[in-house]
């Protein structure tokens, strides 16, 4: 897949100290490296191997993925903020590509 399209669902505002859910999805085939093509050759692995989410430079989650994660990896987790700022999402591809998305969030 030439362009992986990241999608993030996060609230526009959140109360300080209240955990809120963030849902992320990125279109990616997550080729596990276990499958064979029609000629019996292994298809080389090509996956998103790492996902991180940061809020104003502070880490929320740092996830290492393997070929055991489904295609179009869906990741849901909770974050908590004490000030307005920006949530930054980064996906790292095996081929060196980096996909990014960001969401601004206000204090409720």
């Amino acid at each position: 897949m030439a362009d992986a399209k990241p999608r993030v669902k996060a609230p526009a505002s959140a109360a300080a100290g209240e955990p809120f859910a963030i849902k992320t999805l990125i279109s990616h085939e997550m080729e596990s490296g276990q499958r064979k093509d029609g000629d019996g050759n292994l298809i080389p692995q090509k996956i998103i191997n790492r996902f991180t989410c940061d809020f104003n430079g502070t880490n929320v989650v740092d996830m290492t993925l393997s070929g055991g994660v489904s295609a179009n990896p869906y990741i849901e987790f909770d974050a908590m903020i004490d000030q307005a700022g920006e949530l930054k999402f980064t996906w790292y591809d095996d081929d060196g590509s980096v996909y990014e998305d960001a969401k601004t969030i206000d204090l409720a």
Partner: protein
Amino acid sequence: MTYTRRDALVVGAGGLAVLAMTRAAWAVTADEAIAEFTGGAAMGEGGITLTAPEIAENGNVVPVEVDAAGAAEILVLAPGNPSATICTVAFGPAAGSQRLSTRIRLAKSQDVTAVAKMADGSFVSTSQPVKVTVGGCGG
């Protein structure tokens, strides 16, 4: 240069050895993955919840959720997969809870396992049996 039977045998054996090594490299077993994660520390129970469906019709997409309050890092394993490690997740200071929900591939029916490293350095684990109707690792 002409190949003799002996040459062919040597080349063949070398090829097999390489094959065995590469296979071992990616075929990490659950025990190895857990040992690497915990460093051989003792494993406790409780304080970690793994939510997975009892029956997964499609092994390609199995929703799982793991929740371990106070965990620093969580490892999710599928011992029955060709490569057992599914993912590891570390929670930073801005995490609202130590909860992660994702979708994983399962090759066959097995006990999906989660191991959490708590903030105090102790480890807890839990597992949940999942029946898989159609395996999700190609073939």
